[in-house]
């Protein structure tokens, strides 16, 4: 690698988070949002759940955040509102990041999808749904990503025991179906 990164044409050299914050504030003029100041110093916004589509499309089109790096959630059980849904965006032209968060209640949590803005977000939203049970309204194929289909729980919720709740249930059901179909395969008939 060369010692200095090549300059991108038209990319203003941003230093620190002040340039990012100003750019984000300009892009979101007129949309209610709150700046929060997390310990890591990243530019972070808290928005209303209803404003997700507006904020995300402005961040993409006006502030140049062209990549969604992840979507996840924080479970604040037993506090309410229980979940904080987090999006993090990267601008490959300005080389900076922004984080957006919104709070959703613990009872049937759902937020709008942003897969129409970043198609790759579909996987992140599936994972978030799988692990936290947060539904993304408008997601075309919102099904489990890591856990098997038919699994009933959401493992990263705070009220989920880490050893699981009947972790072998799906396997046993599959095994019983298989044995009913073909009793030859059982190894212990005695």
């Amino acid at each position, binding site marked *: 690698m060369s010692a200095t990164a090549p300059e991108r044409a038209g990319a203003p050299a941003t230093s620190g988070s002040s340039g990012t914050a100003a750019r984000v504030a300009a892009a979101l003029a007129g949309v209610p949002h709150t700046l929060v100041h997390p310990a890591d110093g990243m530019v972070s916004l808290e928005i209303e759940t209803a404003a997700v589509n507006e904020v995300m499309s402005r961040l993409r089109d006006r502030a140049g955040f062209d990549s969604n790096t992840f979507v996840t959630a924080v479970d604040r059980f037993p506090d309410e509102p229980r979940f904080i849904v987090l999006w993090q965006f990267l601008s490959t032209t300005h080389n900076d990041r922004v984080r957006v968060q919104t709070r959703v209640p613990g009872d049937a949590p759902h937020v709008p999808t942003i897969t129409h803005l970043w198609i790759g977000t579909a996987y992140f939203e599936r994972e978030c749904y799988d692990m936290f049970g947060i539904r993304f309204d408008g997601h075309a194929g919102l099904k489990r990503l890591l*856990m098997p289909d038919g699994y009933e729980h959401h493992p990263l919720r705070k009220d989920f*025991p880490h*050893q699981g709740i009947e972790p*072998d249930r799906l396997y046993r059901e*599959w*095994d019983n179906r298989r044995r009913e179909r073909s009793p*030859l395969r059982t190894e*212990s008939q005695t």
Partner: protein
Amino acid sequence: MGSLKPADAHATDEGFFVTQLDWLVNWGRKNSMWPMPLGLSCCGIELMAMIGPKFDIARFGAEAARFSPRQCDVMIVAGTLTWKMAEAARLIYDQMPDPKWVVAMGVCSSSGGMYDSYSVVQGIDMILPVDVYVPGCPPRPDAVIDALMKLQKKIERERPFQLLLQGDVVGEYDQGTKRFLRAPNHAVPTTRSHEVLPPEGNPRSKA
């Protein structure tokens, strides 16, 4: 580590013909154990090293790692078995022709290891009859070679023809489908198997 009893310790009141046939069959079986490499995580790397030229399990007749279960004798479960993968592992085991054996390589497959977790099978003996357990995270190839040699000694102690002549043990035979339910040497499920342990006895089954 104590070694298993030699083969001739059991040859007391059996006939010459049967014991010699047993010896011949066991000699053939133990020296051509073709492994089914079920490399599920980092143990798979040690398994590759074991199969490769440096540790060379061809010395024990086990170098022919087949990726078709139809051609395998010993299934080496190397790594962390998740419940999602458990169905596939069980299917692979069922597709292997008898006689067949299972080696649990590494602590993950032996007991779940450090993954005391909702997604990991806490020991593959919950779904498979295991013959040899190999501790280690991952175990060195030497340890797995030791397991193979122990499995060879275990095979030496088997009595396939005696079981065949007894008839009753082989008697798990389905007249309707004309197929054996259970091979003569088929390993017995351990006490952790779900057939033996009632569901309410499993601490993980709490609702």
